C-alpha cells in the first residue's frame, strides 16, 4: 500500500465510491440480461411445444 499521507481518506473514498458504482452497473446489467434470456427461452420453449402439439394433431 503506498503512503497516501494526509489525503488517504480522500483518495481511498474516491476509489471506493467509483468501484461501488462500477460494480453496480456491471451487476445490474448482467442480472437483467440473465433474467431476460431465461424468460425468453421459457416462452420460446412453450411456443415450440404448442406448435409441435398442433402439428401432431
Amino acid at each position, binding site marked *: 500500500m*503506498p*503512503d*497516501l*499521507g*494526509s*489525503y*488517504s481518506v*480522500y*483518495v481511498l*473514498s*474516491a*476509489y471506493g*465510491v*467509483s468501484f461501488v*458504482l*462500477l460494480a*453496480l*452497473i*456491471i451487476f*445490474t*446489467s*448482467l442480472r*437483467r*440480461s440473465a433474467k*431476460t*434470456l431465461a*424468460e*425468453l427461452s421459457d*416462452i*420460446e420453449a*412453450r*411456443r415450440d411445444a404448442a406448435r409441435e402439439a398442433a402439428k401432431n394433431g
Partner: protein
Amino acid sequence: MSIWEYANPVRFMRTSAVLLPWVSVGAALCLSVGLIWGFFFTPDDYRQGSTVKIIYLHVPSAMMAINIWAMMLVTSLIWVIRRHHVSVLAAKAAAPIGAIMTMIALATGAIWGQPMWGTWWEWDPRLTAFLILFLFYLGYIALWAALENPDTAADLTSIVCLVGSVFAVISRYAINFWNQGLHQGASLSLDAEENVSDVFWQPLVLCIVGFILLFVALLLVRTRTEIRARRLMALKLRERTA
C-alpha cells in the same frame, strides 16, 4: 458490407456475441493494469500530493460521460432519420452507463475538490453544466420508463437527447467559452506544457482505454438485453392474443 447491416437485430446479435468476450477481457486487463500502475507505482504530485491518483478515475469517467451522450445523440438521430430500432435501443442501453460515469466524475471531482480547492462544490460553469448533464441522463432514463409505447418513447427521448447535447458540449468546452471558474483545463492535451506529466500520462491512457472498452462491453450486453426484451414483449403479446 455496409454499417446499416448491423441495424438487423439478428446480424447485431451474431456479431456482438463474437465481440463481447474479447472486449470484456480487454476492459478487465486495461483497467486492472492501469489502475494498479497508477495507484501503486506513480509518485505523488508536487502540488496535489497523493490526490493526483484520483485522476485515473475522474478523467476517464468524465470523458465517458460526455462521449456516451454524444454516442446517444448519433444513435438517436439515426432513429429519427432512418427508424432503425437497434440504433435507438443502443441509445437506451447506453444511458444508465452514462449516468453512472457522470456520477463517478461528479463524486471523484468533489472528493478531490475538498482538499485542493477547499470546497466540495462550486457553481463553476463546467461543474454546473456537468450536473445538468447528469439530470438529463436521469430525465432520459425516466422518460423511457414512463412511456408504454416504445416508438413514442424512442421519439421523445431522441428529442431530450438533442436538447441535452447542448450541456454535454458546454461541460466539455465551458473553460474555452467563459475562461472562468475553478476547474482547470484538459489533463490530456497536444500542448506539451498543458499535458499531464509523462509519469501520470501512461497509466492514465491505459485507464481511458479500459473505461472505453468497459463501456463497449456493457453497451453490447445491455443492447442485446434490450433486443431480447423487445422480442419477449412481442411473443407475450402474441401468446395473449392467440
